[in-house]
């Protein structure tokens, strides 16, 4: 058995491994992170002090104990999370007994695996840059196991960097051409710990919680620059059913059957959505053309995917921002859009009844309700008081403080009570325009709720009661609408401070990253390839080119090195000397393989004493050029003397 690793040798293993384990630490159970660090430190100590290996029974029990603990923690040893935890633990256990170089290679491979597994958690640009460094370190560690001098750092980092650079063309080529799947190979584990964005229900407080968050919901770019933020009502779930407290959609709404007409020219926009683990896709306006993805458009203009959105996805829609739709309302929808709980909120019902009795048209009645919000002292605030049992009454006549969810909810209640079909729409409103990249960033805090009422002859019309109370919410965004004291401090600083342009530039980089690198899926791949060359966008062509290109890459790299070798072989002095040898060979004096120039000259001179002077001169010049430090003129002199060397065949030799 080889002696144990020395400290520098072990550092070459432990440090790169620590580099890949560290980012996992936040998601791992604390005891595991601590155990890993403890074992790694102990191994370094052992190498430094030259302590013996821990006894076999101890190593075994640590391994078995760790496995049991991982199993106890996750209830399984497979699946991404438990798998990563298992590998992290096993890498520590292996470190504990690593002796031979063989173990090192295995550990580096585990490191590679953990490195890639981290992308399950985080695929950001920073994470990628960090992992590139870790990749370099792990590769250097692999090289270190092939290199005897453990302390030298540069001789290992340099070839590792070189390998990485040389790998880059092939990697990019494969990345672009390797066919992407549209569906996973096996079932993905549902992970419902984190849920962001809208929930498909609206309980009091839901949206105000969302508004606290800076998390990005999606980014959108338009083909035209003139987009009025007031038009940006990104439509999410439509809520039909109210139980006195919560708005939701209990029954299915039928698919399709949308009768609508756009006004003017449709705009085209592209959305990159962050995964929200829900089904709906955010839609703006009345779609003129939808992309061919696995999603259905419901009759209430809600667009639902078949599978929850678990990874970032991108779609492109062409739609009219001005439109009418739903001119006919079927009976079932009619009844559903008027339905209210049987009892409760008597004062609100009474108010609606007085409006209904005035004999106004439906449109005027809607206006009457909005005027009510405008006229009465309603306040837009993110910190409304708690509402009592009769929430609508309490809000309308007591507190009068709230934000979009309150206004939308109360407005729809009033509309239904006065006989106008209405529903709540949730989604996002506005967003932040990134002028550098010409796209909109829509965050959780842009979450919004508004109302739709159905008017005869017009269909469904969007009404935003919040805009009646706080017009700046729609025109300038949330911050402008909030009282100064309620504006989040962080938002205030970043949005108005000198950092703002940098922040937007950084978001632009991330946007492009998401669009081109992370969002490169089967759809985008075909789109990109067909833009490169239309014939490329089919599987066969991709596979052929993939094979061909990879072969080209390998032969290219090999050719590069072989060419270098031949160049070296033919330095001018050797070439001239070879010509001299050919001239002598014609006389029957062949230089033997193992004969040095001096030996050959001696032999040749003794066979042909008449040529001795010339042979000696040429040999000396060649040796000076090839093995010594000869001035540059020597080469010319050598060429001269070899050109002049025209020996005649002597009778005795032939």
């Amino acid at each position, binding site marked *: 058995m080889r002696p144990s690793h020395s400290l520098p040798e072990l550092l070459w293993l432990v440090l790169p491994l620590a580099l890949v384990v560290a980012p996992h630490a936040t998601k791992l159970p604390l005891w595991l992170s601590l155990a890993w660090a403890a074992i790694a430190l102990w191994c370094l100590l052992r190498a430094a002090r030259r302590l013996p290996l821990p006894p076999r029974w101890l190593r075994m029990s640590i391994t078995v104990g760790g496995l049991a603990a991982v199993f106890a923690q996750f209830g399984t040893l497979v699946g*991404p999370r438990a798998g990563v935890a298992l590998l992290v633990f096993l890498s520590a256990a292996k470190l504990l007994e690593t002796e031979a*170089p*063989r173990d090192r*290679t*295995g550990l580096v*491979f585990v490191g*590679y*695996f953990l490195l*890639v*597994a981290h*992308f*399950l958690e985080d*695929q950001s640009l920073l*994470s990628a840059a960090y*992992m590139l460094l870790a*990749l370099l370190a792990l*590769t250097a560690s*692999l*090289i270190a*196991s*092939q*290199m*005897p001098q453990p302390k030298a750092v540069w001789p290992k980092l340099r*070839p590792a960097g*070189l*390998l*990485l650079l*040389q*790998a*880059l*063309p*092939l*990697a*990019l080529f*494969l*990345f672009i051409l*390797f066919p*992407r*799947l549209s569906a*996973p*190979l*096996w079932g*993905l584990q549902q992970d419902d710990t984190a849920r962001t964005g809208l929930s498909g229900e609206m309980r009091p407080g839901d949206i105000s919680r969302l508004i606290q968050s800076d998390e990005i919901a999606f980014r959108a770019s338009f083909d035209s620059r003139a987009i009025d933020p007031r038009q940006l009502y990104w439509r999410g779930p439509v809520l039909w059913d109210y139980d006195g407290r919560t708005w939701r959609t209990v029954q299915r709404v039928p698919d399709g059957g949308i009768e609508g007409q756009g006004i003017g020219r449709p705009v085209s926009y592209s959305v990159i959505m962050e995964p929200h683990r829900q089904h709906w896709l955010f839609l703006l306006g009345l779609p003129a053309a939808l992309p061919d993805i696995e999603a259905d458009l419901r009759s209430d203009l809600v667009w639902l995917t078949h599978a929850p959105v678990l*990874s970032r996805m991108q779609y492109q829609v062409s739609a009219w921002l001005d439109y009418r739709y739903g001119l006919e309302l079927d009976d079932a929808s009619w009844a559903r859009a008027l339905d209210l709980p049987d009892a409760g909120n008597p004062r609100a019902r009474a108010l609606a009844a007085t409006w209904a009795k005035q004999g106004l048209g439906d449109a005027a009645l809607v206006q009457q309700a909005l005027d009510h919000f405008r006229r009465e002292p309603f306040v837009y605030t993110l910190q409304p008081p708690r509402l009592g049992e009769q929430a609508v009454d309490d809000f309308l006549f007591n507190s009068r403080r709230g934000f979009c969810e309150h206004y939308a909810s109360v407005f729809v209640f009033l509309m239904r009570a006065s006989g106008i079909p209405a529903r709540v729409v949730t989604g996002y409103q506005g967003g932040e325009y990134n002028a550098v990249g010409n796209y909109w960033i829509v965050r959780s805090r842009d979450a919004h709720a508004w109302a739709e009422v159905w008017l005869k002859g017009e269909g469904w019309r969007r009404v935003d009661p919040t805009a009646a109370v706080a017009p700046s919410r729609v025109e300038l965004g949330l911050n402008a609408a909030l009282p100064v004291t309620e504006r989040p401090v962080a938002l205030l600083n970043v949005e108005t401070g000198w950092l703002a342009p940098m922040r937007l530039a950084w978001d632009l980089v991330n946007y492009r990253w998401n669009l081109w690198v*992370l*969002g*490169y*899926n089967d759809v985008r791949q075909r789109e990109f390839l067909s833009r490169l060359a239309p014939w490329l966008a089919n599987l066969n062509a991709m596979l052929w080119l993939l094979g061909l290109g990879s072969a080209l890459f*390998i032969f290219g*790299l*090999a050719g590069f*090195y*072989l060419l*270098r*070798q031949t160049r*070296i*072989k033919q330095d001018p002095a050797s070439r001239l000397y070879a010509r001299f040898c050919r001239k002598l060979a014609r006389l029957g004096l062949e230089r033997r*393989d*193992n*004969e040095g120039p001096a030996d050959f000259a001696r032999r040749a001179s003794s066979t042909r004493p008449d040529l001795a002077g010339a042979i000696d001169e040429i040999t000396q010049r060649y040796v000076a050029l090839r093995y010594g430090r000869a001035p540059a003129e020597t080469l010319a002199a050598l060429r001269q003397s070899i050109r002049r060397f025209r020996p005649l065949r002597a009778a005795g030799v032939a």
Partner: protein
Amino acid sequence: MALPLPALRFAHLPWRAPRREGGVIRLTSRRLYILPTRDGLLFALLLGALLLGAMNYSLSLAYLFTFLLAGIGVAGLIHTHRNLNGLSLRAGHVAPVFAGQSAQFVLHLDNPSGLARYRIGIEHAAGQTAHADVAARGQADLILTLPQPRRGLHRPGRFALSTTYPLGLFRCWTVLELDWAVLVYPRPAADRLAFPGGDGADQTGQGRRPGDEEFDGLREYRPGDSLKRIAWKTLARAQPPATKQFATPVARGLWFDWAQTPGGNTEAKLSRLTRWLLDAENAGQSYGLRLPARAFGPARGEAHLRTCLEALARFGEG
């Protein structure tokens, strides 16, 4: 260093006929083989697993890094190949050894290229693998140490020159057989035995050989003889010029005779003779060796000793 196909280690593959070579050998890609090591196969397995993961979770970065790793592997293959490609080598001197010792076969490596070469190993079925680095445009020696249990002239046979640098995922190697031999003297007998008696010593000993210590008579002058040696006295007597001759007396020489060497068999006798030769040389005595077919000496000195030892080493060869 694990190999997928250990049998290939020293085998010439069909496209290269085995032959013994001399002189400077330049390793070209035509004589280099390259295959993945066990780690290389494991690495391929890892890449497959990573690719499956990337596909299943459709993680763009997982794709990218898997392909980067694949690229690193492929680039590593070429680096491994070029680590041997273009290297020149030449068999070096092999010092004779006694049976039971290890012979050191020196292989001179010459790197004509501007790329340094690392960890080039010399492997032999019977010996430990040794490694050397060769700097850019530099030279280095690789020493193959092989135990030599039997006397005689031995060829080490095939050996492999190999490398797994830089990643250890591929092993590039060539199988060589050089015109290379080591002379193995018989193992000296362990016990010291007195030299054989002087009875045979004077029988054929001439007693003296030309030298300059004692006067040994006169002979006719030949042009070129040193003036100092001209016998001026005889010249003065008007006799023809004569030159004085001198001779060095030879110590009573030892004769080691095969026929009179104790020992049960040939090897034991050879061992005994070897021991005597060494002891005699150490003692500074003059000695001769008489074998059934040939005789050497008597004389002393390194060259004489080697001649005698070689005769013993090759005793009984056809």
